[in-house]
């Protein structure tokens, strides 16, 4: 079985702070990490590799600095790593990104594609389903469990707000997984020792099956109109009132904030 896992290098958003004076993001010194949901996806692929044997290829689109994340994937147990890196991809939104990834997938051999549910920098959760559509593959999103059945189909658990759907999928498909369901393994020491002796293949746009006019900015229907920091919190109010008044105050605030 050949599994492709899509991974993305992201800034660790829990480490991002706002400049209190300028109100802008401080990105300096913020570490880059493998996106947590993607890492969960890699873990699922590696578990399948452990159980039934599989060849796991990790792919990513990004700048050359993403090399270190692909080495991490190799040290965790991936068999092959490909970085799609080309100026032609610059400015891609989710549609253009998923299109480029689909061009790469088309020239690879695969039975299953796994992606993370969403990336912590954008939180869109769009690249996975968009990629599935480009490749004309069935998709299952919000996956918390997947196992191979004797008939070759996959039995998948999909987590919704109020239920878990148990789904059976036939043939090739794309799954997007939740990090919380797949605790990623650590890199092994021997994997780390070998990581820089192995190859991370860097591919440019001409190696993949795409119409170059649909890449990058040109292939992106959405544009960022503006971005701005979240409004700063106004100082709170403290009331010393009767219990009845207190309850009313709370209820009206909860309504104002649409919490109830």
């Amino acid at each position, binding site marked *: 079985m050949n599994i492709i896992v899509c991974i993305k290098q992201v800034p660790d958003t829990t480490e991002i702070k706002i400049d209190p004076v300028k109100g802008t993001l401080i990105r300096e010194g913020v570490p880059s990490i493998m996106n947590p949901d993607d890492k969960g996806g890699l873990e699922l692929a590696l578990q399948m590799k452990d159980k039934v044997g599989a060849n796991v290829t990790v792919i990513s689109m990004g700048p050359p600095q993403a090399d270190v994340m692909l080495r991490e994937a190799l040290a965790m147990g991936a068999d092959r790593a490909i970085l799609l890196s080309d100026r032609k991809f610059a400015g891609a939104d989710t549609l253009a990104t998923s299109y480029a990834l689909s061009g790469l997938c088309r020239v690879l051999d695969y039975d299953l594609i796994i992606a993370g549910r969403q990336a912590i920098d954008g939180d869109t959760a769009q690249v996975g389903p968009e990629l599935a559509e480009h490749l004309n593959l069935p998709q299952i999103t919000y996956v918390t469990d997947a196992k191979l059945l004797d008939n070759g189909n996959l039995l998948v658990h999909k987590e919704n707000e109020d239920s878990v759907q148990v789904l059976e999928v036939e043939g090739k498909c794309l799954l997007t997984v939740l990090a919380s369901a797949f605790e990623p393994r650590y890199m092994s020491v021997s994997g780390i020792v070998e990581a820089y002796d192995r190859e991370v293949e860097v591919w440019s746009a001409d190696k993949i099956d795409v119409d170059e006019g649909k890449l990058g900015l040109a292939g992106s229907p959405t544009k960022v109109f503006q971005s701005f920091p979240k409004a700063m919190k106004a100082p709170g109010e403290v*009331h010393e009132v009767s219990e009845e008044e207190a309850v009313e105050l709370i209820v009206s605030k909860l309504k104002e904030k649409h919490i109830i």
Partner: protein
Amino acid sequence: MEKKDYKNVFVFAEQREGVIQSVAFELLGKARDLADDLGQKVVALLLGSGIKDQAQTLIEFGADEVIVVDTPELKDYLSEQYSQAVYQIIDDRKPNIVLYGATTIGRDMAPRLASRLKAGLTADCTKLEVKPNKEEELELHSTRPAFGGNLMATIVCPNTRPQMSTVRPGVMQKMQRQPGRQGVVTEFTPIFDTSKFKVKLVETIKADKQMADISEAKILVSGGRGVHNREGFDKLQALADVLGGQVASSRAMVDNGVMPHECQVGQTGKTVRPNLYVACGISGAIQHLAGMEESDFIIAINKDKFAPIFSVADLGIVGDLHKIVPMLTERLRKEMEQ
């Protein structure tokens, strides 16, 4: 076809087990504003099996037209079945804007459709408005949080139609229901390519309300020393139940064995960032504040008006939680029933 030929604001009216979800009404409320600004109509899409008779409800919440697809294939939500049906409607009707709830259904289907339609899609929006561009055409401005909520971004689709967004549930305002409001109900019969139905629903397991991770909770009712004991926490639990939230604790109440460690908020416990954090009888030691001060909205109830918790609270109440919490619970229960 030109951009201006795409008309009307479509809302995907999500239903589960035949029950139209609250987010659908919220989207209709927002769609109503947008459509009025554009001088266009609000069209709701109602897909499912045996749901036809609910179309009128959508009209009463703001839809001018409801397109109904009522067929056994759509009984349960499955990506391909739903995507095919919605795609055919969009392809047929050429809407200007399409809104979906940012739920596991909306966020599964909308990107699938965006890719099929080569349309722009903005995820998990918290604000929508139409504004003129340089050519004086009105376009949709979708604003959403990014970078873990540290930054807000406004997204536009300058060249493509429809303009699509998934919208965070609980953010938009529903319209006041107008019983007897008039509208059109149109039935639509999609032509399914069943060869693409590769995913089969084996079973649906209803989630039981188990002890979930407090760091994932949207609403937390948290107690400190002022709660005194287990009975005190029962009052907090009742409030949390009404609000659909969970109970958390300060370190003091974990150390004395009243609450389990999984519930502890703070430096030696968990860092939480819910939409609502109700701090009851928590003085607000720095170690506790470090674990919760990023919460969106903080209500503090404490007897001591000098308690440091009030410095981070959006709303502070100086008073006895043992009286206020049960009264508040009762009041909210009535509110919810309405």
